[in-house]
């Protein structure tokens, strides 16, 4: 069967009914094609109305009690929220206990991240949100840390990927990476067999530190390795530039 044009797939993309291979193909195409992005946005607008078509059903009382018992137990273990003014102290305070059970590499990298953020209070709110998500991952009982090593292109670079193998979310924290030209980005790849899947792009700060929150297309356990390459702005469908960090999962 010949491959259909990507335009044919957009309705199914919006409906969330593509195979993983088709999904990758469409996403790679959408990154480059503004007219298909517009079509996809229009389709998504309609699809958003569909869940409301179902008839509401009252949940059982035990559903709510089970859920909120779990939530309250979790809340009791969380630090109390304080105003943004205390955010740096909070970030440091929140990260360190979690990292005692994670890895020393992550502690050093994230410690560096906190240091690098000092004096950038304006950026703090946005960063803080990312940190909260990062923390959720780090604090998750199922999370594991994986070390990434710099290649000969960037021997001083290190990275840590924090992920629960059963989940799709992951956090990458890197340090020691070279600054890139303005039209370049670092792109993270999750690799299964010979097949790399691009899962996000980012740049590093002047200290060579960066982080990326990843939503993988399937649970992290599906992948065997992880790599970071230098790519043109916006990222590439497949790796094209220098490999700077590599690790196994």
């Amino acid at each position, binding site marked *: 069967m010949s491959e259909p044009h990507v335009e044919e797939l957009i309705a*199914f993309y919006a409906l969330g*009914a593509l195979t993983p291979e088709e999904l990758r193909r469409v996403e790679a195409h959408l990154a480059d094609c503004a007219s298909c992005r517009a079509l996809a946005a229009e389709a998504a607008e309609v699809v958003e109305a569909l869940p409301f078509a*179902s*008839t509401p*059903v009252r949940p059982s009382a035990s559903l709510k009690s089970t859920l909120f018992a779990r939530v309250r137990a979790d809340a009791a273990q969380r630090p109390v929220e304080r105003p943004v003014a205390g955010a740096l102290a909070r970030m440091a305070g929140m990260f360190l206990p979690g990292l005692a059970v994670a890895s020393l590499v992550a502690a050093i990298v994230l410690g560096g991240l906190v240091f690098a953020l000092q004096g950038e209070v304006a950026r703090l709110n946005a960063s803080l949100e990312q940190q909260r998500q990062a923390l959720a991952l780090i604090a998750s009982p199922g999370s594991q840390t994986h070390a990434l090593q710099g290649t000969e292109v960037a021997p001083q670079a290190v990275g840590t990927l924090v992920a629960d193998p059963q989940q799709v979310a992951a956090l990458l924290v890197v340090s020691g990476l070279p600054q890139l030209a303005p039209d370049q980005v670092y792109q993270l790849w999750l690799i299964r067999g010979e097949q790399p899947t691009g899962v996000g792009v980012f740049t590093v700060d002047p200290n060579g530190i960066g982080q990326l929150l990843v939503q993988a297309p399937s649970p992290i356990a599906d992948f065997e390795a992880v790599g970071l390459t230098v790519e043109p702005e916006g990222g590439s469908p497949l790796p094209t530039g220098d490999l700077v960090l590599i690790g196994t999962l």
Partner: protein
Amino acid sequence: MSDIQPRDEELVLRVGGGDSRALEMLYERYASALLGLAMKVLGDRASAEEVVQDTFWRVWRYASAFRAQRGSFANWLFGIARNLAIDELRRRRIRPQLVQAEGSPLGGVEGPTDLAEEAWLRERRERILRALERLPEAQRRVLELAYFQGLTRQEIAESTGEPLGTVHTRARLGLNKLRELLRSQHVQETG
């Protein structure tokens, strides 16, 4: 939604800060609609309740991942629940098991409807149901199989016995027509 009730976006921000009471308010607002969606997809109540519980747990853990500029909280929430339900459905297709089906994808699921449903949720439901009713049956069926059953286009072609090209056309025309219907309703209601 009543003006005196906190907005979803405010509540989800509070949930991100660890406020379980805010999560409870979101639960009261959406749990029935989410269970309705999960039952429509899965057909059985026990699995559907698990999806609802998992959805709110994820909201609790990942509230700070929500970005208001990318769409409403309701879309985010229903998106999580739909994905969890479809994942479960696909696992079942790989490892079939006996499930007591209580509904069909096309007929919806009957449930107790004496709910103090939020007025705006009811309006949204009535609007999409009116639009779906006016859609040609074959187009509606393709959209429902894809969205509520998570069938790929190839699977839809196999299950309906139609050529793939016809399935593509029906999905595209169905979404276009649905958009027109929803927009014209909106114009009638506001104009």
